């Protein structure tokens, strides 16, 4: 912890940069808020608990948005918590087994002989932006819709914002949008400047002001031939990353993303970021895409809960179990147009091989 570089900055600046101040302030603030309760078991105990929870990433549960987005650690913790809590929503094939096991648990034998049909019919849980937003709000009551919508825009075409998204698509897009939101705004500004033909050398890279560019039109959808030249773009982003005091993706990874193509669009870039395993790993909040639905400890807990529930409800007549086919199979209104720069993106992102693309597969 006491890295040598701390000496390169005056104390307060160093503390601020490492967000220590943020947590100290918050700790005091929490202390004030709950002083009656805390006085019962001691201030030392409180601080222990507080910083422990910060370390574990559970401190952001049900907190206000301004706090949740205050530090990268908080953001990562929030992402992780979101993933953990609503992983079940994204489960697909696994659901079948789970239900079967519940059923077995309930009755000791399987009711679902014909369930193959049912499960084939059943869609993955695809939700709309609004629904995802609702889920976010369960964890953070004042989570702004705007951010959710931006995340959805990475996944969906501008005119298809009501479409359904799979959990993993949304989650990775949301991760990029949420964790790097200031960075992305700067990128949008740069992209816009590049598009309008300004000399990239003279581009004043926006660093701090995130609000400054909000008023600008977000880069609108462009045909694949539009967009900007990747190398030039990278050049600008590199300098941005150097100067930005907000978190940026590692420039090496950005380079990797950008080097594989000649030209790309803004959303193509974001999509590539969202799909990039390296960036996800660097961020460290979420598991790899392949493991996204796995969380053994939680599953264990869930099993326990389920056994309770079913234990409770065995007393009630369980003859209705056949009704499970009533589960909402959503007849999606516009499910056929989810991805915008489909070909383009595949060109851009060699890693995206469609097999991991759940929304696409759900189209079939």
């Amino acid at each position: 912890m006491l890295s040598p570089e701390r000496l390169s900055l005056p104390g307060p600046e160093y503390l601020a940069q490492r967000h220590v101040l943020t947590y100290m302030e918050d700790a005091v603030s929490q202390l004030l808020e709950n002083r009656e309760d805390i006085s019962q078991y001691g201030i030392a105990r409180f601080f222990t608990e507080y910083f422990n929870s910060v370390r574990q990433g559970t401190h952001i549960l049900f907190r206000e948005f301004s706090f949740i987005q205050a530090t990268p650690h908080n953001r990562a913790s929030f992402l992780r918590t979101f993933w953990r809590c609503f992983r079940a929503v994204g489960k697909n094939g696994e659901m079948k087994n789970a239900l079967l096991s519940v059923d077995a648990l309930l009755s000791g034998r399987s009711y679902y002989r014909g369930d193959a049909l049912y499960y084939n019919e059943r869609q993955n849980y695809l939700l709309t932006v609004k629904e995802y937003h609702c889920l976010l709000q369960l964890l953070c009551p004042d989570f702004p819709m705007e951010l959710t919508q931006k995340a959805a825009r990475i996944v969906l075409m501008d005119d298809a914002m009501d479409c359904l998204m799979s959990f993993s698509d949304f989650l990775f897009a949301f991760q990029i949008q949420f964790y790097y939101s200031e960075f992305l705004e700067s990128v949008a500004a740069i992209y816009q400047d590049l598009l309008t033909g300004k000399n990239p050398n003279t581009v004043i890279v926006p660093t701090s002001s995130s609000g400054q560019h909000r008023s600008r039109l977000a880069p609108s959808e462009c045909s694949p031939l539009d967009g900007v030249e990747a190398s030039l773009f990278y050049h600008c982003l590199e300098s941005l990353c150097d100067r930005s005091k907000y978190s940026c993706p590692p420039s090496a990874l950005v380079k990797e993303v950008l080097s594989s193509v000649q030209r790309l669009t803004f959303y193509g870039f974001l999509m590539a970021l969202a799909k990039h395993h390296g960036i996800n790993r660097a961020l460290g909040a979420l598991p790899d895409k392949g493991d996204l639905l796995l969380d053994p400890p939680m599953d264990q807990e869930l099993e326990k809960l389920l056994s309770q529930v079913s234990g409770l409800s065995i007393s009630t007549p369980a003859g209705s179990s056949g009704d499970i086919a009533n589960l909402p199979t959503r007849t999606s209104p516009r499910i056929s147009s989810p991805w915008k720069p489909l070909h383009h993106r595949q060109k851009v992102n060699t890693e995206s091989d469609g097999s991991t693309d759940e929304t696409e597969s759900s189209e079939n």
Partner: protein
Amino acid sequence: MATRERFPPAKEEAVAARGGGRSGRLVSMVPSKFRAGGGGRPGPSPVNNCGLHLVIQTSSVAERNKPFEFRVNKDQSSFHNRLLQHDLEKNHSGKQGDGRLLTPLVRNKQVYVPVAANLADLSGLELKQGGGCLSAFGDSSIHTPTKSRTRQGCHSAGPNISDNIHFGSSASITAFPILHRAADEKILNSDRLTLERQKLTVCPVIDGEEHLRLLNFQHNFITRIQNISNLQHLVFLDLYDNQIEEISGLSTLRSLRVLLLGKNRIKKISNLENLKNLDVLDLHGNQIAKIENINHLGELRVLNLARNLLSYVENLNGLDSLTELNLRHNQITSMKDVDTLPCLQHLFLSFNNISSFDNILCLADSSSLSDITLDGNPIAQETWYKNTILHHMMQLRQLDMKRITEEERRMASVAARKEEEKKRESHKQTLLKEKKRLTIGNIARQWEIQQNRVALVTSSNQDKKDSDSCQINCSAAYVFPEETRSLDTILSNSVQGLSVLDSHLVEVEGDTLYLYGSGALESLDRNWSVQTAGTVITVSFMFIEFDEIVQVLPKLKIRFPNSVHLKFKETNIVTLQQFNALAQVRRIEQLTVDPQGNPVVNFTLWKYYVLFRLNHFNLQKINGTEVTQNDIVMAERLFGILAHVASSELPQYRLLSLLGESRKKQFCYMLEAKGKKSGIVSEESNDSRRVGGENANRAILNYTTREFHTEKLEEIKERKKFCQTYIQDLVKEAADINMKNESLQKLWPQMFIELVRDAVIEIRNKNSYMKLCLQRITDQK
């Protein structure tokens, strides 16, 4: 009289009966007997009946021509007058239908006759001259209806005319025939003259008959009343069945008491100004459309306007003596002023067009009316007809010629009251219903306005980028107020009685409590009767912001302990977390969230979230569909982790603050249980959780309303600001201390070295140092 014969006997009887105005008629009321006895033989007939007796009398006195005094007995004329009227009318119509109509009267004659027997007492006509006058009257046969019994008189009179009266046609300018009577005839019937069926087209000039009191022009073709202005003593003028088009030439006949103008062509009542003593006015069978110019007839007791063209009865004031009014066979739809007639007893309104009692409401205000006919009107078809009439006219003794018994009257008043109550009730109901409808409309409109505004605010806050959508919104906002204004006016126009439109509505219907509009929530503060509160099972919220409902939910469970079904429609439930708020209700078995105005219902997951969050209620139905076991399992699968994370990973201090005070205790218990080996304890802790009702781990998922939340955020901001400065100060202080410390640390080695060096230098020369030390000691001393 031959004409008389023409009538079928029954009819004649009827006529006679009705024509009872004159004594002769009265006699004739005894039909069969009369016919039998009086068939032309005037002699005293053995009949025991008074009518007969009268006949005898008449006949016997017939020869005497004492002047008769025609006086109508004001006290008791009603019935004979009535008869007269009916008779006249009958005469006029001469149709079979009428005859039948009258039969009841005929049947009644038995009743009348005995009364009539005593003429002096009873009949309207008091004949001062004794029996003689009666006969005289009959003889003169002024009255055609002179029944057969008068026939004797007729016989004498008829020939009289033809034989004894001589029409001289004066060759002078006047083309009028001049009438002279033979002297003996004159002496015989000095005061009456009958010119019946003489085919007269004009009134003859009647010379030397100034003392005439009774003049009969029945069944002629007279078109104009003329040449009688010299007959100033005329009391009785009969112009029945002529072709008179205008009432005229009567202005000098100041003593005229009876004016019979039935079956003429009169269109307008006029020129009666001087006939102040008029007692009987018969205008039946004319073409009169309006009652007018009769207000001065204070003596008038009988007015017959049957078979005219009246559609509206009014202008009756001033007829202070009117006891009988015949308005049969008109087209009357409504009438008034009847209550200004102090003596009116008999009113005949049969065969008109009266369809509603409201149109003849003035009848109810008449205190004298005792007999009324309304048959042949639409109103008489109504089931409530009799009851209503009787109820409103308690003084009535006879309706449609049937006597009213006490029993009937009592039943009527009861029934009518019931009817009225029912009507009032239903009226009230419809009024209420209408008001309810309007109020709900109003609430809905306000709600829409409110929603629109909210949407506008958020949109303008939110996307400044989407100038397009903003424009749409703006324009929508511009359009809307106008729309509402016009709607407003429409509404207020239609409302009238219910002018004040409420902005909320509370209604208990069956077991459902309906709350419309946010103002309705205040009603939960009211004192509800235990019974009402107990019956409410369903509570339905409409047009109320969910956030406002949240605030009253605790009250709900106190006020309506039995409510197990909550319904939401147009309540703006947008997010899943809003359902958290429902957890504080005591019991819910059913939940209905209408998609209308509650976007959350469009979410796939909402039902599962509700099941998960309100798991402790054991919900039976959501939006009408049964909750199945698998739904519950699914809900748990989807959201169980959330609850688990929430309860197990939150630091304790936050847990406590997130849980309400009341739940802390049970939670502490749970924590204790958790502290033990989780494997063993799990069932136990389950039990404890379930005892507490709501799962504690779910209780953490609560909902704060928007205002409260912003308030809280504000508070947090404030506190944060304070903490920020506080921490900053602390940090600065710490940094300062740290810096000093570091500086000290940096300086200290050098300082130490310097100190040591100084000391070493000082003690290097041992001797001099010793001296120095000794010197110091001595100095001290």
